[in-house]
């Protein structure tokens, strides 16, 4: 077949492709194009007879061009047709949602299950409400001011390192971030309370927090905390210890107690880590609690004067405390969940136990 003939063939096929009304038609055209006896393949076979190498190469290129043109035309038409076919199927499938009868809708005859973390959060909230706390919430995306600086963690503070912060490409570098704890809500609420002169404050703030961390049995990069904040007149460390103990017994049961030991958080002073009786061995000592009978639950302390300064509260007039701990960790302890990763897998066989 001569070169002219080949070009005619291409035009012919492309016209045929354009006429195709169904992807079935394109299948037929495509298989003809790929068949051994197709003009393109025949032309390619004939190349062997051309002796001049330069000429052979040039011819080869043209044949390839023709073949590509056909393939491209088929692909383009296939896309058009599938769009048309999808349109047609969507149209025939159309449903007027206002036409749905009041008797419509079938649901399984078994109740669903709340996530164990949200159940845990709800029971923690119940305990706090009963203790007189108001439940508040706040944003998950924060700025360096709320998450760090106003909490007495200025840029370069060594303790900032502990937070494995996830920053966002918004604003100046390292100013917008995923909150690493629920403590920035202390600042939001104190700023608000100062603005509308609504101190005292007795609030609990549950919420989702983030850190750069590879998930393992005890840690997830996305996790939940609850923060407690009390600012009033004459609040003491003894009050803090009392509130922690009341909460512990109310949530975990009367035989679980709390104790405080010194720790360091830049936004509280004095600061404490609070531990509760090991829920596995009830204080006898086991592997989970490294034979101490106690397990760490969270951090707490008296609001640092630097925090009061940041929000403009007079630390000689008001005092207060804050505490925070992991909701997921409470769920893990209460239900003996060996591996935290089960919480984000969403396997119904796991969820339906709770």
């Amino acid at each position, binding site marked *: 077949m001569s070169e002219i003939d080949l070009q005619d063939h291409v035009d012919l096929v492309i016209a045929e492709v354009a006429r195709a009304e169904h992807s079935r038609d394109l299948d037929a055209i495509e298989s003809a194009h790929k068949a051994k006896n197709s003009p393109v393949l025949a032309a390619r076979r004939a190349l062997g007879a051309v002796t001049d190498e330069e000429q052979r190469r040039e011819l080869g290129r043209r044949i390839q061009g023709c073949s590509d043109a056909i393939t491209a035309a088929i692909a383009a038409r296939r896309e058009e047709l599938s769009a048309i076919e999808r349109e047609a199927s969507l149209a025939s499938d159309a449903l007027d*949602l*206002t036409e749905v009868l009041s008797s419509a809708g079938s649901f399984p005859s078994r109740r669903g299950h709340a996530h164990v973390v949200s159940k845990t959060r709800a029971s923690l909230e119940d305990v706090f409400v009963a203790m007189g706390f108001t439940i508040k919430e706040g944003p998950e995306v924060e700025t360096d001011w709320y998450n760090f600086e106003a909490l007495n963690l200025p*840029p370069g503070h*060594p303790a900032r390192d502990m937070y494995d912060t996830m920053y966002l490409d918004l604003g100046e570098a390292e100013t917008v971030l995923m909150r690493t704890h629920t403590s920035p809500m202390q600042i939001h609420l104190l700023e608000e309370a100062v603005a509308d002169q609504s101190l005292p404050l007795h609030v609990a703030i549950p919420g989702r927090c983030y850190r750069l961390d590879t998930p393992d049995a005890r840690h997830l990069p996305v996790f939940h905390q609850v923060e407690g904040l009390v600012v009033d007149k004459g609040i003491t460390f003894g009050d803090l210890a009392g509130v922690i103990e009341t909460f512990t017994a109310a949530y975990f049961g009367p035989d679980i107690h709390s104790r405080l030991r010194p720790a360091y958080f830049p936004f509280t002073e004095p600061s*404490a880590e609070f531990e509760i009786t090991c829920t596995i061995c009830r204080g006898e000592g086991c592997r989970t609690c490294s034979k101490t009978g106690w397990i760490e639950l969270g951090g707490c302390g008296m609001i640092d*004067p630097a925090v009061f300064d940041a929000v403009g509260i007079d630390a000689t007039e008001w005092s207060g405390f804050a505490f925070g701990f992991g909701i997921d960790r409470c769920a893990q302890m209460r239900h003996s969940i060996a591996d935290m990763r089960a919480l984000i897998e969403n396997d119904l066989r796991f*969820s339906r136990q709770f």
Partner: protein
Amino acid sequence: MLTPLSWLKDFADFPDDADLLRATLDDLGLVVEGVDVVGDGLRDVVVARIDEIHPIEGADRVRRVVIEAGDGPLDIVCGATNFAVGDFVPLAPVGSTLPGGFDIARRKMLGVTSNGMLCSGRELGLGDDHEGLMILSDPKAEPGVGIVDVLGIERDVIFDLAIEGNRPDAWCVRGVARDLAARLGLQFRDEAPSTVASSPIPTQQLLSAEVRDTTLCPRLGLSVLSGVRVTSSPRFIIDRLEKAGMRAINNVVDASNYVMLELGQPTHPYDLERIEGSGLIVRAASRGETLVTLDEHERELGVAGKSLGDQGIDIVICDATDTVIGLAGLMGGVSSEISEATTSVLLEAASFDPITVMRTSRRLALRSEASARFSKGTDPAILEIAMARFAELLALSCPDLSMAEPWVQPNDTPARTVIEVPAERIASLLGLNLDQVEIASLLEPRGFSLSESDGVYSVTVPTNRGDVRGGARGIADVIEEIARSYSYSKIPRHQLAWPEPGAVSARQRMRATLRDVVLGLGGSEAWTSSLVDSGELALLGIDEPEIVVTNPLTEGESRLRRSLLPGLLRSVGMNLERQQDDVILFEIGAVFVHPAVSSGRWARAGSQGGSEVAMPDEVDTITVVFAHDGADATTAVAALRMLSDSLGLEGVEIDQKTRRTAELVGLHPTRSGLVRDRRTGVALGVVGEIDPQTASRITPALSGRRVGILSLDIGRLGDTAKATRRSELAQVVSRFPSSIFDMAFVLADDVVAGDLAKALTAAAGELIESLSLFDVYRGPGVEAGSRSLAFRLKLSAEDRTLDDTDITAVRDACIAAARELGATLR
């Protein structure tokens, strides 16, 4: 920080009771993360000589070994093979107990009586080598001799302590010992190092030294030591370094590390002959300067890092020609490293600015024991003692050592902070009354001093407590120190109460209702990640800027989610693949909208919170995915009706005409719509089916399956300006019977049934009690492109029973209204 009890005992006569010490350390806030007892249970272990080795018939993994351990030949069954006749190995005889509590008894195995156990290093708690028996090569190894004597092991307890950021004093053995001794009421021994031979010329005349920036290096101590012979350290130094987790290198480096572990002051020894011009300069690195550190990495210095406020300040030590030879507080350079040829050492002991050292350490990802201590803040007053202690230790292995009089600049004693603490503040912050004697007994053993005047204590803070702030904030720091020393667990607990009642917000209550209704419909709650893959928006076809995580650990967690849908669909797919039935999943959580397209929340940011930054919208969302058998768009519509009824919403309608909106992306184009409030016109969410194309793209398990979806914006649902609520006021219910009748209309397919229902309701006027669609028919008898819609109307009046006239009037009004929409009565 690994802290051996034997080392602590240099400073006070601590008891051996590891449990007591552990509990005391914990209560002091020196949290014990692990306790390692070495040499315990080795009293009975003796040296045995291998005399014969025989196979045991029928056993290929154990052999019978005849040993001599001083009391005549004994048979032992042993599984190890790494020994030969004539070797000396440890034997745990019958009746002994190994570390970890394993009791050795006489046992009969395969007809052979085994009289004890031959041990590996690991079984004895002496290392991890578990490959075979521990082979003893020491000349003292004679049959029957105690292994403790052969190896020179003393029982010791090593505490692994986590030192908090506000305890710079406790980053050393001496500091821990001081705190512990104070609590236990033991005498703290703090002896000055004994002096070594002094060389005639003082350091100041041997060297030049210049500190160019005294904020970066507030105090610099230098001392020249001659007569140095580089060799290995005495055994006790090597032992203690190893117990503390450091490797012994040579006597010079070891002495420096020993001083750091003991006193908390890192020092740096230079080979004096290798310092050009016999002088040192301390300054900030200039931009782009380089140094090859001891770990043989070339470090580029003085370049600002990415972290907030990092201006690229690195403190460097230079020789007299101003060439950088060390990275202050972090690591020395190779050029002046101690070698076997070293005979004189220039010892540097300095105070560096903690934050600068920490920033450099972070930026260069270079951490050392020294940088850990400098970052917390070291004691500027300890330089002289550290240099003397170094010399004292080095003299043990260098008999000819002499030390030139140290040169410390500035030479005056560092100032001590004084905090004025009102006595009343201590009581009011702790809820605990302590008198001056009690407070002094807590603070003074820890280096504070105290005087009282007019109810105010003047508390002088020791120089090793750089964490105690000056001014009013320092009051809280001192009070913490009092409470900590007294013991938190002894502070009486108080039952606090206040008059304000606890409460949850309306939004939280609404969320609880939503959750409860969906649970009742069979939905189970999922928790999917708020962090998604970079392809997620493209996958959904949402044309909006993504919110990008600057420093993600993985690409799969590099964006914030814009929709709960993909995560839920993946979870649904996974459950279907695991053959679960009745798969309905929902999630309640935030989705994030880029500030460039959001409504605009601004927040304080930057240094001092002095600027404002545009923040993403966080849309509180509930999304329910129905993938149980028989689920489709009608399931989602039924769920919507149930939810809006439970929330008391009025006038929720479905709009299928609006298509091009981000909310509808990924939804079926002809089987889904926006949920709107009729009065306000505000879109509250979406309802319908998932676009099959999107579904199968996200998870193949969903292809060929109809999946219903309902997604609502909880913030809008809770906002009465957006979502209309039923009035809370009671409506009178008619005492007269209702009249019920049906009407069927033929309506063209391009008019939605909802419009007809709306028109009929309006036409029926105030008599209408309810109107419901109870049948839809397409087929013979109804022209193509239309359908018959049958409605049931319930009418009533407050004051009478309705008669035919009333009903006819309503019917006629309805027929007329339907005609407006092109509908005819059937």
